[in-house]
């Protein structure tokens, strides 16, 4: 079962991963975006980590709702409302259960992913974060909550955005010139699944500080 601590650890691990990868995310966002994805997300997830240190919501749903709220208010770019909606809708779906099983979490996360698609009006194949989120959640469903499978699927989904032409967001204005660049949003979405797998392995938990840079 996954409790509030698991979700706090997941989000803290995500904040660490975003911190580690911020420069790469911004590099990916330079040719096809406005070169701020890494710095925006870093600001947002640092705020998430900070608020989770101060406040200690005691259910998974409350942890996700609080984190999502932070992202909406601090990121400053489109990824804020998108990731904020992902976490808040997922958290809302989990309600006030003190613990959730992997299957219930996967179902709630799918609701969150669907809300992101609705908010941005995007579908898989548009070269957006959905290209990592959708395969990630599909794999999580298929594997009955094996987070390693979801991590791999999300990563492959992000890598597969390179040959696509962007149909949403600022990159879509570039038309064919958006082809040949990996999508920064899909790349950061893969980090969410990576942090989830780390946390489930226990690497993202108590021993995280010792073993991760």
């Amino acid at each position, binding site marked *: 079962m996954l409790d509030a601590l698991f979700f706090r650890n997941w989000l803290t691990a995500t904040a660490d991963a975003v911190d580690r990868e911020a420069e790469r995310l911004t590099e990916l966002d330079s040719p096809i975006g406005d070169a701020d994805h890494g710095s925006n997300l870093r600001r947002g997830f640092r705020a998430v980590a900070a608020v989770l240190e101060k406040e200690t919501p005691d259910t998974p749903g409350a942890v996700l709702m609080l984190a999502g709220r932070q992202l*909406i208010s*601090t990121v*400053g770019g489109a990824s*804020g*409302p998108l990731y904020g*909606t992902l976490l808040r809708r997922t958290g809302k779906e989990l309600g006030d259960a003190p613990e959730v099983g992997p299957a219930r979490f996967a179902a709630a996360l799918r609701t969150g992913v669907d809300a992101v698609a609705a*908010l941005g009006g995007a579908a898989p194949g548009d070269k957006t974060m959905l290209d990592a989120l959708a395969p990630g959640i599909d794999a999580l469903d298929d594997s009955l909550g094996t987070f390693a499978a979801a991590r791999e699927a999300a990563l492959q989904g992000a890598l597969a955005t390179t040959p696509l032409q962007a149909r949403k967001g600022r990159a879509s204005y570039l038309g064919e010139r958006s082809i040949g660049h990996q999508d920064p949003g899909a790349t950061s979405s893969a980090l969410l699944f990576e942090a989830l797998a780390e946390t489930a392995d226990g690497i993202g938990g108590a021993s995280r500080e010792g073993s991760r840079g």
Partner: protein
Amino acid sequence: MADGPLVGIVLVSHSGAVAEAVAALAVGLAGGGGTAPVAAAGGAADGGLGTSAELISAAAARVDGGAGVAVLTDLGSAVLTVKALIAEGDELPDRTRLVDAPFVEGAVAAVVSASAGADLAAVEAAAADAYTYRKV
């Protein structure tokens, strides 16, 4: 002219300068005496380009007189942030609407109609109608 409160208008742009200038333009063109309350919410919290949920919430609170608030946005994160705030439920005044309209032309139409006492639905319709004006 209306006796009660007027619909408030919030203009959200990625740029503080654009939001302020469009607000000034719309108020100037609405002209002649008092206008409906208009607030600009442009740029990120640090003054750079981007969108600030806090600036948007504060601007909406400032122009809310009880008749509703019409929010016009430019692109990308401005649109998504307003939608996300509305979905939150308690971040913006009751009867706050994201209006689907061109930013400059819609702002002028919204401020003129709100200043004339139009209700929220009529302000929304006037702003959206700006899409139908073709330039060529």
